[in-house]
């Protein structure tokens, strides 16, 4: 495996399966009375969050703590970042503090690439702009495999704002590597112009895609898209691309419904769908901790073994 996890494209099929299998083992531990492993004792993991994302930060924090790592949370708000310190200077500071891994969430695509050039520790991308969110894709794949028993040949519909979605990019790359078939479903305005070159199918018609799908993953519609002419009104978006119970009925019986959160109930997903038995949304959160433990374990444990 690479030293960093910045893009799902960094992962070979074997790398990805190793992470999922390791996560499976670590997930068993969550059921034990003592959930902590001593593996990363003495190692320091910094959570460097330039965007508010409580759920992702807590997930990484829980993962690192269950592996006994020391965790430092560095939030952009109220720190020197708010005073205009550059990413490079922050990186050099973390480097001087001896961070073994930096988990970064940043609003600018490519910020983790830049960071990786300035620190010696491992960089884990926890979401950068509209680029990637590889641990989200890993936890999604993990959830699919747990529910449906396989990934190879699985048909996955990813629905919504693909243009601005780091979740969609990471999922397309990872699921392609793992042999699943992805179909992106969105209004044409919310697809990249060159999406034809991506390793997946594209459709504008959700109703046509659902009967063939084993998994449907609904993407969040960001507030700022709603007033920028990507679609006429939220109601029209919801009618054409929202998942309600009548649409859910078009899915095959075994199919699952996913959402990376946070949801806009009543916009891209109806409340009764989100709360239905097909929904894996709460499960995804729990699986996130296991997958992030596996990532930290393999990135940091691996480098320990090399020493």
């Amino acid at each position, binding site marked *: 495996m690479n030293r960093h996890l910045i893009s799902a494209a960094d992962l070979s099929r074997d790398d990805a399966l190793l992470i999922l299998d390791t996560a499976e083992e670590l997930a068993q531990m969550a059921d034990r009375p003592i959930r902590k492993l001593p593996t990363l004792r003495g190692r320091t993991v910094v959570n460097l969050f330039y965007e508010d994302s409580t759920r992702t930060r807590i997930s990484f924090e829980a993962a690192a703590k269950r592996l006994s790592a020391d965790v430092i949370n560095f939030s952009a708000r109220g720190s020197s970042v708010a005073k205009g310190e*550059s*990413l*490079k200077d922050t990186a050099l500071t973390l480097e001087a503090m001896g961070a073994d891994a930096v988990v970064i969430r*940043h609003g*600018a*695509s*490519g*910020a983790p*690439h*830049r960071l990786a050039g300035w620190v010696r520790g491992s960089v884990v991308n926890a979401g*950068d*702009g*509209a*680029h*990637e969110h590889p641990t989200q894709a890993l936890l999604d794949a993990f959830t699919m495999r747990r529910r449906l028993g396989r990934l190879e040949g699985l048909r996955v519909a990813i629905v919504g704002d693909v243009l*601005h979605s*780091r979740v969609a*990019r990471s999922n397309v790359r990872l699921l392609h590597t793992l042999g699943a078939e992805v179909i992106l479903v969105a209004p044409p305005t919310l697809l*990249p*112009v*060159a*999406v034809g*070159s*991506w390793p997946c199918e594209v459709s504008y018609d959700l109703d046509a895609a659902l009967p063939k799908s084993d998994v449907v993953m609904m993407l969040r519609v960001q507030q700022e898209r709603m007033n920028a002419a990507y679609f006429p009104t939220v109601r029209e978006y919801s009618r054409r691309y929202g998942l309600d119970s009548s649409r859910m009925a078009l899915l095959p019986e075994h199919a699952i419904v996913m959402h990376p959160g946070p949801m806009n109930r009543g916009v891209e997903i109806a409340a009764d769908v989100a709360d239905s038995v097909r929904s894996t949304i709460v499960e995804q959160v729990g699986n996130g901790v296991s997958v992030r433990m596996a990532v930290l374990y393999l990135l940091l444990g691996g480098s320990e073994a090399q020493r």
Partner: protein
Amino acid sequence: MTDRTGPGLAGQDQPAWLIRGARPLGGEPADLLLVGGLIAAAGPAARGPSAHDLAAGVPPGTQVLDATGLIALPGLVDLHAHLREPGREDAETVETGTAAAALGGFTAVHAMANTDPVADTAGVVEQIWRLGRRAGRCDVRPVGAVTTGLAGSRLAELGAMADSIARVRIFSDDGQCVSDAVLMRRALEYVKAFDGVIAQHAQEPRLTDGAQVNEGEMSGQLGLTGWPAVAEEAIIARDCLLAAHVGSALHVCHVSTAGSVEIIRWAKSKGWRVTAEVTPHHLLLTDDLAVGYDPVYKVNPPLRTAADVAALRAGLADGTIDCVATDHAPHPLEDKETEWQAAAFGMTGLETALRAVQEAMVETGLLDWAGVADRMSVRPATIGRLDGTGAELHGCPLVPGYPANLVLYDPAVREVVDPAAHASRSRNSPFAGMTLPGRVVATFLRGTPTVLDGKLAW
């Protein structure tokens, strides 16, 4: 304020130079005698070590430069450079920018108007012009802003800038597009009174809100906001039609797409007064360089695809694109050592332009050296109105009676580009680490060397 005597306009006291064995425009070796700022004589190269054809006319004290194997071109003219002074002297000054220009083989550069304060009054353009005279290594031709403060709302005093001692002829809001169609029409009409030209930065602002890289496969992969080709092409098409409608002259800055080349080819076929430039980086580099998110490759307009590069090269070769202009845009390190979207747009280019053009156009057989001279000296001098009867005459033939503005260039070497060695105050060269052909050996401005042996002559 006094001018340095070396490259002054009078030139009576300057020593004469005899350049031996250079190949004018890549042709047969010849000797060139420079006296009093002019080319005094030119003839076939000498055969023996001491005697030569020009011997009779060589005044005492003449310095001799052995230019065997070197190509002689008329001094290069850049229509588009950001010298950053006044306002951003941390990035570049007229002094350092003209030093970089001389080292790149230029004898005249046009200084873009987006300084602080903006070059939108006679006072500011005269200040920049004087800074150029004082630096002395290169003629600095200020470009005047089209609109006050580059704000795109009302015309700057174009006539006052034209009538000033800076004699401004090119007007541009470069960095910003004059997107208002009425304002663009009026600007084109107004400058007809003093033979001016409007140089447009073609970028439809609404289509490029927050744009970071060429919109295409790379923008989709990288999750960076796309800068679509149509945002350039739509403005170029509109402006060609406006220029035709009012019978004025339009110059299109930094053409970057295949579609733009087609539109300009069509406009020229109608006989309309449209000219265009392309940058060295758009002739050589493509958008896939953004893959590592290193903002040294961030530029506006953005690097495009290989198909665009091929079309730009073909357009420059067939004359659809009139000239190469650097869009030299120096930035201090801290403005590039950031996340991609926080970084400044722009690349340095003065010191690498001729080498990049050799790589893109000569090594590929698309242009010969006469063609390079045409696209980098003759045509830009014409567009900048430096071909008339004024003291600042550029783009002239290398024959007796014309000002001795010329560059001696060794096309045979290949070297790695090292921005640390550049005279520019900034280091943001996209060619850093690339091996490019060629080396500027000497540059002469009105008979006085500004560069000798590849180094500044003073």
